[in-house]
């Protein structure tokens, strides 16, 4: 019986042979140490339209073993945030205009951009939205995975044997429910389906045993079935290995299914945050309410969806005051004059809405 068969059998029976070990430095799942702490992060783009601000004082935190979601519509700044955290924004035009990104206690914005390259790909993993772009089209999957492991071995100074590399790749692919991993290793990226590519991209990103994984739209464009598989894999990795994740998505159903906490973004700002179960069930910001009520529910004879007119915010022409005012059903005079701060509310929730100024209130 070769290693591939062993692994497959193990995966099929639910017991993973030669369990995928993570280096000892990884903390136990459930310990609540903050691994990523972003404070007042502000990004500017110097574009021909003048100085734009896709992120304005964004503060988020992720603890070990936690799955945190960032949800919002297109143009809300979610992808800018994920790229900013990885130090992958093109500069120019992007400028870090303020704030701090503290990863495992080190501020990545102090000093040069080299701080990012030390952790990126090693301790800080990423899965980009377009998994086809994350893979090199002219090399086989196997070549790319081996290369990543060799780089890891070089950087840690721990030599790794050829057979070890081989079995490691196979084991990882089998963990991600890929049938016939030996065959997949010999394929080129274009020969795989979208769902398969996504899983290979996830496998590549966890190859280096990151402590935090940033995923940008991990299941967009995949059908419900494949989506389901990927979600349960991610959840399992977080539970078994205590891997922390930051998932950037526009899909509320996805966020409600997998995330522990969520941040809701609009026009480069956090508008609401809290436990996913609370935020998506009883939203405290009108914007979150709009999002949640837009998810179709019921049958063809159910009433039409309550729809707010208007398109997602355009950061080139943001209004004074609350940025959501134009689409807000509860807009008041004050919202047009002053922008609300992010009010701290009981149970660790926050909401950037004047209605919450004096604590949680039920909506009219």
């Amino acid at each position: 019986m070769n290693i591939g068969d062993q692994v497959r059998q193990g995966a099929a029976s639910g017991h993973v042979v030669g369990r995928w070990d993570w280096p000892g430095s990884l903390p136990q799942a459930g310990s609540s140490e903050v691994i990523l702490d972003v404070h007042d992060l502000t990004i500017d783009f110097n574009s021909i339209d003048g100085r734009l601000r896709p992120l304005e004082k964004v503060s988020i935190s992720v603890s070990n073993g936690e799955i945190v979601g960032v949800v919002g519509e297109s143009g809300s700044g979610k992808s800018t945030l994920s790229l900013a955290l990885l130090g992958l924004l093109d500069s120019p035009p992007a400028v870090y205009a303020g704030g701090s990104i503290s990863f495992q206690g080190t501020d990545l914005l102090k000093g040069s951009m080299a701080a990012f390259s030390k952790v990126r790909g090693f301790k800080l993993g990423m899965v980009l939205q377009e998994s086809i772009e994350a893979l090199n089209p002219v090399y086989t999957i196997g070549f790319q995975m081996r290369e990543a492991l060799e780089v890891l071995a070089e950087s840690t100074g721990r030599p790794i044997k050829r057979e070890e590399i081989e079995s490691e790749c196979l084991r990882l692919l089998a963990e991600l429910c890929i049938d016939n991993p030996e065959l997949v290793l010999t394929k080129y990226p274009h020969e795989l389906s979208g769902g398969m590519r996504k899983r290979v991209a996830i496998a590549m990103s966890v190859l280096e045993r990151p402590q935090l994984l940033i995923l940008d739209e991990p299941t967009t464009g995949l059908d419900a079935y494949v989506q389901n598989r990927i979600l349960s894999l991610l959840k399992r990795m977080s539970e078994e290995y205590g891997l922390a994740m930051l998932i950037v998505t526009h899909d509320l159903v996805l966020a409600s299914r997998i995330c522990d906490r969520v941040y809701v973004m609009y026009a480069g700002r956090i508008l609401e945050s809290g436990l996913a179960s609370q935020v998506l069930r009883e939203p405290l910001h009108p914007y979150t309410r709009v999002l949640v009520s837009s998810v179709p529910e019921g049958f063809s004879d159910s009433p039409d969806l309550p729809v707010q007119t208007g398109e997602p915010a355009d950061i080139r022409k943001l209004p004074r005051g609350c940025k959501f005012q134009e689409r807000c059903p509860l807009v008041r005079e004050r919202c047009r004059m002053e922008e609300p701060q992010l009010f701290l509310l009981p149970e660790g929730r926050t909401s950037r809405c004047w209605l919450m100024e004096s604590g949680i209130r039920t909506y009219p």
Partner: protein
Amino acid sequence: MESAPILELTGLSVVFRTHRGILRGLAPSDEVRALDNVNFEIGSQEVFGLAGETGSGKSTLARTLVGLYSPTAGEVRMLGRTIDYRSREDIRYLRKNVGIVFQDPVGSLNPRLRVKEVIAEAAIASGMPLVERKQRVEEIVQLVGLRESALDAFPRELSGGEKQRVSVARALIVPKKLLVLDEPTSSLDVSVQAQVLNLLRDIRRKLEISILFISHDLRVLKYMSDRVGLLFYGKLVEIADTRRLFNEPRHPYTVELVSHINDSGSSSSSSPVEHKPSDTGCRYSQVCPSRFSRCSEEPPMYSIGPGHYAACHLFESEPSSGKLSGGLSQLSAMADRENTSN
């Protein structure tokens, strides 16, 4: 509201042949059965939802209905007329009655035409006189809720939601009997998706039109359709009234899919298996939790309730609860005959 169906598909199969190498003329070709013996009908002013995962043949069906692919076997009847795919006139007849909105709003609009030209193009092709055309463009733009200023813009200047509105307007500029929507909202944000879904429901109420709504998103399908059919690798596995299908799914595949939209937290213990179709017998049998010896034979569509059909041997002995609509029971009987003769 019993009237003649708008569209009837009988034993529809679409097979793609792939050839490899320079000796491709000599070598036997590989076959991909994108659609395999599909039977259903769409009634007048009905919204029929078609679900299935990637590769199940949903888009192949959509494209066959506007004459972009030809059936390998089986019959497409549009308003009672059997379409001969070799006849230009028949294809024209098909396209005159079927409008289509494609999944990708960017790729399906000509980037060099202004929005009003995109919309009017089909009207010009149909030979509509200028005066009528202008009026019609105005009407349709109002119907789909497109802002006036968008008419002179190029498609790239519009937002995703607006592009889909343009696609709908273009599909309906010449009045149609059937509108085929191939994943119309899958690239849109939830709030914009809600706007487009409302628009489609509004169109359905205002125009006397039938809709074939194709989506992999069961929530959206449930919300939009009167009846739903489920495809698995080219085979229709279950077909029923929407409420029935979601409340009492019968085919093991449907049961699995419907359970996904109902469970909120996917349990970490269940690691889902790869869906690989079987080459022989029931295509779902390889991953089916309730497979038994008979599954090596291909199951016919069994009638298991009013308007409810499932292609699974589990329901062989089920007493069908009578009162079936004429057309469908005939179709299913035909499918049965065909399968037993195989």
